[in-house]
């Protein structure tokens, strides 16, 4: 792989090839202190996003941060220099909603607990039983660096994701991570980035909450209780003899911590009806809400702009269900939604609503870009799309002081491409994460499970999983 990449990068200066050789494996080199920490990409077209493009500029990366960007920039003597002629430099892209890095349900290697823990195994008779509430879970604490998608996403130009826990009504808190590191902890940029809420009933008919109105009532009661807890605790602590003992409730405590720190609350809302409902609830609950989904936002851009509520737009556009009865008549409403959903980003941009994109379970980055191109075809400008994938995502998630643009002092999440980032033919040539250079691999065809060697046996849980499938 290494030698092939060297050939392909024939345009690079010899020195860049040397980097490649030195960094046969960036991981291995890291611990030995041999990894370069200074880079300069020269003669490149630089798109800082925070400012105008620089047609023939240099960007200097030093010890994990961007040191300088501009047309005339001093190159530190210790820097590895990459000739960026014909290349374009962008801030790394942010996928603002995925389970990337988290064990997936079918993954038997210790992930089952992490994902299923929030789903109630017992009958809940009301909010007081706290069904499906694990707001203390941090995605950051459950990361598995062996998720192959980390490299796949990185190779496509994504350097950060908002990784969201799943399961239950309060599944936990999403973490903003960088897609590189030797240990799970290395990845984490902001552990408690968002508090996730789901309105999807989990109880069926016999357990609470079994209806959307049940989940709303539940979330409402939890927010009330969390506030009450904060109010009552100090009074009780100062007057033990006066009051009945306060109950201890981990959900109250952790939701309250999130609310007090003004953490973003992610409210799922896809249709215009759900969006308007979520806006009302956000007002009622006085939370810093960000909407998740928002595919029919094209119909309600005015109020989103008025309320200044940002949205994370799912790039998994609605499709005719693959297993749909071919004879079944489709409603005009569904057809309209499928036709117009990709126009949402353009409509949001026009209305001045801040938005970012998320992959929402799409299997591969090429699907992300394919679907993005539908939004571009529906009127979204490439500039606005790039902002949504970088600086706007960082601003929405409260990390624009660290990420999202090519500016001195920001974390050096930088990608270098051989063309326009959203062009299908464009290839990512280099990726820097936290200022570390990563070899970019061609996307390998997906491995067929039956090609795995079952005799590797119990020592290799992945192989087990493959057999089990």
């Amino acid at each position: 792989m290494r030698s092939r990449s060297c050939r392909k990068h024939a345009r690079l200066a010899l020195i860049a090839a040397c980097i490649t050789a030195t960094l046969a494996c960036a991981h291995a080199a890291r611990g030995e202190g041999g990894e370069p920490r200074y880079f300069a990409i020269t003669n490149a077209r630089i798109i800082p996003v925070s400012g105008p493009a620089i047609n023939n500029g240099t960007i200097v990366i030093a010890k994990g941060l961007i040191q300088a960007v501009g047309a005339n920039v001093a190159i530190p003597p210790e820097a590895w220099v990459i000739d960026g002629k014909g290349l374009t430099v962008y801030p790394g892209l942010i996928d603002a909603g995925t389970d990337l890095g988290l064990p997936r349900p079918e993954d038997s290697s210790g992930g089952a607990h992490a994902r299923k823990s929030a789903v109630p195994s017992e009958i809940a008779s009301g909010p007081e039983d706290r069904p499906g509430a694990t707001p203390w879970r941090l995605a950051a604490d459950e990361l598995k660096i062996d998720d192959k998608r980390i490299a796949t996403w990185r190779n496509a130009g994504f350097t950060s994701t908002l990784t969201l826990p799943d399961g239950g009504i309060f599944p936990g808190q999403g973490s903003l991570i960088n897609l590189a590191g030797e240990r799970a902890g290395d990845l984490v940029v902001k552990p408690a980035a968002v508090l996730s809420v789901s309105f999807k009933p989990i109880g069926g008919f016999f357990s609470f909450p079994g209806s959307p109105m049940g989940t709303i009532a539940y979330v409402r009661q939890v927010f009330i209780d969390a506030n009450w807890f904060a109010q009552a605790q100090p009074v009780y602590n100062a007057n033990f003899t006066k009051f009945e003992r306060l109950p201890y409730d981990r959900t109250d405590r952790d939701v309250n911590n999130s609310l007090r720190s003004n953490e973003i609350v992610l409210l799922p809302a896809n249709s215009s009806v759900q969006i308007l409902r979520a806006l009302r609830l956000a007002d009622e609950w006085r939370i810093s809400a960000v909407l998740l989904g928002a595919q029919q936002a094209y119909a309600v851009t005015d109020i989103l702009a008025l309320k200044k509520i940002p949205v994370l737009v799912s790039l998994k556009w609605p499709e005719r269900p693959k297993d749909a009865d071919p004879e079944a008549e489709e409603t005009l409403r569904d057809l309209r939604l499928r036709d117009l959903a990709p126009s949402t980003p353009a409509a949001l941009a026009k209305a001045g609503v801040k938005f970012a994109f998320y992959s929402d379970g799409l299997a591969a980055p090429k699907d992300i870009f394919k679907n993005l191109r539908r939004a571009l075809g529906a009127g979204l400008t490439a500039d606005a799309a790039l902002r949504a994938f970088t600086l706007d995502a960082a601003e929405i998630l409260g990390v624009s002081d660290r990420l999202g643009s090519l500016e001195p002092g920001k974390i050096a999440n930088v990608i270098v491409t051989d063309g326009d980032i959203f062009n299908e033919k464009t290839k990512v040539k280099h990726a820097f994460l936290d200022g570390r250079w990563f070899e970019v691999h061609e996307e390998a065809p997906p491995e067929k499970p039956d090609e795995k060697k079952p005799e590797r046996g119990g020592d290799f849980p992945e192989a087990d999983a493959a057999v089990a499938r």
Partner: protein
Amino acid sequence: MRRLLTVAISAITLLAQPPVQAQTPNVILIQNATILTVTHGTIEHGSILIRDGKIAAVGMDVKAPDGATVIDAAGQFVIPGIIDCHSHIAVDGNVNEGGPAVSSMVNIADVLNPADINIYRDLAGGVTTANILHGSANPIGGQTVVIKLRWGKQANQLPFEGALPGIKFALGENPKHSNFGPPAGTPARYPATRLGVEEVIRQAFTEAREYKKQWDDYNRRKAAGEQNLLPPRRDLRLEPLVEVLERKRYVHAHCYRADEILMLARVAKEFGFKVRTFQHVLEGYKVADEIAASGAGGSTFSDWWAYKMEAYDAIPYNAALMQERGVLVSINSDSAEEARHLNQEAAKSMKYGDLSANDALKLITLNPAIQLGIDNRAGSIDVGKDADLVIYNHDPLSVYAVAQKTLIDGQVYFDREHDLAARPALEKEKQALLEKEKKAAEEEKKHEEKSNKSPEKKQDQKKKPLKPGDSSEGVSGGGR
């Protein structure tokens, strides 16, 4: 919640959005109509003047002021908008929160879905207002809301302004979960008997009283300036029950049998709350005096029964008999389909029980308006009331009557003529979208084939027609 009737009207299914409406004219005159006012008789060749969404004048010699939009209703009939006192339309997701025996923390108003096509279909049947109820899976169910069927408006524009909110209660078999059980291994929910249903209601109101006391006590001490007080924890389950005790929220109680009706009347009396309506109340005719004495109304079906054991002892005379004994009676639908012909359901009480035409009409207009506490604004054609009106081509109590226009707040929300006229364009749009999608899929497939040019695959495709089996199938297929 008794059974589901699904009648697909595919043409109307097409309608994803309300028909294009002209900007609401401020002044409308409906003229030359037979006006069934409900409160003051029938006016032949009469006119109704609507100004700013309200009825401004009704009579034989009302003239159109300058600039008024005139709807000529010659040969047609106008009645007040139909009020459906028991509906489950316009709700996102399950109408039952079935887990807790007392699910009063949930609120239908939170999940109103203004895009539910049933709103439009019911409008087409002349319904302008509906009491949207929680299901009957719990002795005390969720909070309920009265809405106007303002098709095309947002969820927060549906609730009937000023109407008191309600709460659903349920007696008998449904709250016992007697017709279905939890999955194996999970315990059945309490209550499992009719005794238990009563006990759950008593227990809940006992808690609600205590809860109210806690708050009263806290507020009193706080007002007196006492320091270091802990406010009680707000309990969304008990708050609506306190409102019931304070008569700020109506109780709509699902019931069938005479014994359970009497049970709830006794419990209500004991705890000092009122049951606003007994819903279904199929055996109401047996205890009509007691219902009347309790001050509750009865909201029943015309002739729908025997769909389960507890609904057997019913008669189509129920509405008329209850009315005769002084109960305020309405006929409801409990069904998005039946709601489209509530006029006919009301008319059945003329055959069964000899109600007058006007009394029959009251069952779906003024009476439910009173039951829902909105008779100051709806339920009859009187000056000052909301211009919620239906125009029929025939006498609305005849089987030939088809709603032509339905108005809410003086705005035309359903117009049969416009609906029919709009259908070809909608069908055309639909076909165009299907075609567009098909084309896009084909193009994508082509594109993908081009970019994944795998030599093996190509060979495979080329080989195919050469297989003898394939080609012969092809021939025989083509020959058929």
